[in-house]
């Protein structure tokens, strides 16, 4: 062969190869017998949204915004404080990697054990992982600051003034944009936390969905799409503080208010998370430690290991699915390919696909194809493909254009895709870890990912088991994160997600 393929192309083929290999082991059978009645009911429901049926609609929206605002505000403030030391101080980096490796839903489940289904649990469930994410991304943004300003400083300028006067102004816009992108993510997290009991949109969404009240589901989803799509209209940096100040009051008024007892927190650390064989046992009792060995081994061999395999299979296939769909979706919102009307349709489609919780998508595909990995793969690919497609589409619109650019397929294949491919891979590798975290919530499909086993342990009130599995999940996520970072470095991809 004379043609030498680039490293990015090789990497892409590598990932497709891995996904094809995973497909051999994945269960993709279609087993439905008669999906059309239920699907018909869904279609009818989605076509006839019923905005009047949900009495607490306004409150649910308010709560969704309030939790997101407070969680993201706390996460970004702590992240900002940690960012300057992030690159230089190992422990900060490790702690941040660990806390962002745990899905918001699992944080919520942990805090619910301590605080009950209370607002504090919800805010912390968003704020903690977001601190880890913001610290990392802010640090990367600061790293890329233009250093020319630094050179103009007089010798002996203090570290703090250097930071605030030379470094920060250069990257301020970038930080702000990223924080706003986080707020959109925060709204999604906040809504999804309703699934475990926060009084946000997800709370009602899940109830109606379970009952098959699809007109109500439709109304809730439409409101949620509008909320996300109009974020730039109702939230402005200038008035952000008003939202932050008002949110605690909105939350205090919500349904979840409960009392706080310190003994519950204490109990969580001294009893709940202590492995069952060691609880109430003498510390030197060899019998207890033998039992602990059996307990650990049983958990690892029956749940953790099969869970890891299922999680990796699903993640690798969904990652490639996401990539393919993102490449297919991005032209929809690009002015290089579509006119105003076409782009509007594209935007609506992408907002719907990326804002509908994967769980809802998976359930629809479950009806269509029956329980297997297939609904999960399609749901994850569609959701994440729409997110990356959206980001790439915006990126394409900002590219400089040549007057002699080709049109249509040639423009797509020979100009646009090659120019954005590096950025595309950067986003995709960023999303890798996120996709893995999201596999957690698809246990309903009978796919026994790690998340499925964590959910089971919580349902059985076996917090000790849940904690060990959560830690294993976090370590797996960190491993993926390291792979992703090394790959991005090797391929010289821009490391910062130029999200907003």
């Amino acid at each position: 062969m004379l043609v030498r393929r680039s490293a990015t192309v090789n990497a892409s083929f590598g990932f497709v190869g891995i996904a094809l290999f995973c497909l051999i082991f994945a269960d993709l059978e279609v087993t439905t017998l008669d999906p059309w009645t239920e699907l018909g009911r869904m279609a009818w429901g989605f076509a006839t949204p019923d905005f009047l049926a949900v009495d607490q609609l306004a409150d649910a929206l308010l709560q969704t915004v309030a939790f997101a605002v407070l969680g993201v505000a706390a996460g970004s403030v702590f992240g900002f404080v940690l960012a300057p030391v992030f690159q230089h101080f190992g422990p900060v980096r490790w702690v941040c990697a660990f806390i962002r490796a745990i899905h918001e839903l699992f944080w919520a489940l942990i805090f619910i054990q301590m605080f009950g289904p209370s607002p504090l649990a919800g805010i912390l469930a968003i704020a903690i992982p977001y601190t880890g994410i913001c610290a990392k991304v802010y640090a990367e943004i600061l790293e890329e600051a233009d250093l020319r300003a630094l050179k103009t400083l007089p010798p002996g300028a203090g570290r703090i003034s250097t930071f605030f006067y030379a470094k920060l102004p250069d990257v301020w816009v970038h930080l702000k944009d990223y924080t706003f992108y986080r707020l959109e993510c925060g709204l999604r997290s906040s809504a999804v936390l309703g699934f475990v009991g926060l009084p946000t949109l997800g709370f009602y969404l899940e109830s109606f969905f379970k009952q098959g009240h699809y007109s109500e589901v439709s109304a809730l989803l439409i409101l949620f799409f509008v909320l996300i799509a109009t974020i730039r209209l109702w939230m402005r940096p200038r008035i952000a503080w008003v939202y932050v100040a008002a949110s605690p009051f909105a939350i205090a008024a919500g349904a979840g208010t409960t009392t706080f007892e310190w003994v519950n927190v204490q109990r969580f650390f001294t009893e709940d998370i202590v492995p069952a064989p060691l609880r109430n046992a003498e510390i030197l009792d060899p019998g207890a430690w033998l039992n602990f060995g059996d307990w650990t081994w049983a958990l690892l061999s029956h749940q953790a290991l099969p869970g890891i395999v299922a999680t990796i299979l699903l993640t690798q296939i969904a990652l490639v699915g996401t990539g393919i769909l993102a490449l297919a979706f991005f032209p929809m919102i690009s002015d290089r390919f579509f006119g105003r009307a076409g782009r509007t349709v594209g935007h609506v489609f992408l907002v719907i696909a990326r804002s509908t919780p994967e769980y809802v998508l998976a359930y629809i595909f479950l009806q269509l194809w029956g329980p297997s990995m297939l609904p999960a793969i399609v749901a994850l690919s569609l959701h994440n493909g729409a997110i990356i497609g959206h980001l790439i589409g915006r990126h394409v619109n900002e590219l400089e254009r040549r007057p002699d650019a080709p049109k249509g397929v040639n423009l797509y294949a020979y100009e646009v895709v090659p120019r954005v491919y590096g950025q595309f891979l950067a986003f995709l590798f960023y999303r890798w870890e996120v996709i893995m975290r999201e596999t957690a919530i698809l246990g309903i499909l009978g796919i026994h990912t790690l998340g499925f086993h964590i959910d089971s342990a919580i349902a059985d009130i076996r917090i000790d088991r849940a904690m060990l599995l959560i830690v294993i999940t976090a370590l797996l996520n960190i491993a993926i994160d390291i792979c992703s970072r090394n790959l991005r470095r090797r391929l010289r991809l821009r490391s910062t997600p130029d999200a907003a």
Partner: protein
Amino acid sequence: MLRKSLLAMALAVIAGSTALADSFVFTAIPDEDETRLKQRFDKVADYLAAKLGVEVRYIPVKSYAAAVTAFRNNQVQLAWFGGLSGVHARRLVKGSEAIAQGYEDQFFTTYFIANAATGIAESKDFPKAIAGRTFTFGSKGSTSGRLMPEFHIRKQFGKSPDDVFSRVGFSGDHSRTLALVQSGAYEVGALNYKVFENEKKAGKVDPAKVRITWTTPAYPDYQWSIRGDVEATFGAGFKAKVRQALLGMKDKMLLDAFPRKSFVAASNGDYAPILDTAKSIGLIDD
């Protein structure tokens, strides 16, 4: 505009949310139509408040486990639990007890249902033909949707459900089990008989698509459990007062919230069979 209304709203509600001290709080597991929980149980709260002479509030929860946690953390003092969640809760809270159960809960059953296309007919004996099919339980923490069906499956086949069926799912709730089996997404499932009967009444069961294949023997299910320390807060004799109020609930509109014909007295001992069953299939450690 928005920020003004947001602020106004926030201020309006802090005023309303300060009088929460020492109110008697209860919850109920979300086993069925969750969408009107608040409306349904707020009426029950009003009834209890009138009978008990204290402020009574209801808080909604999203899962069986959350109901148990709220009870354990003393965020609720009274709860309408399922058989298994009640056993869990009372093991975790010393001195707590089951004080009343629904009339129907003395002899509750689970239906095994199958999609009509499987050709599995209704039978008196356990339908062994369900082996090798796809199967869905309800919620992982449910007595009628998980514990009892798993117990019978293990008893009949001597194997875990994962080894008996080609796929095993957890639909998350009884209504959804019905919807999934009816659509054939899963071929066979098990659910709370009352939910099935209610859905049938509501016209959501198509006999051409889904049928009952087996009914389990009876077992004790839902019950009201109360924390042991309520009398320290609300005075001696409070527990008996709560029990009296529950047993005396005659208004059909209130009872429909559960839905039960009436409430009868219950005790922790009534649920020994549930505890034994849970231990026998490894859901609770000895």
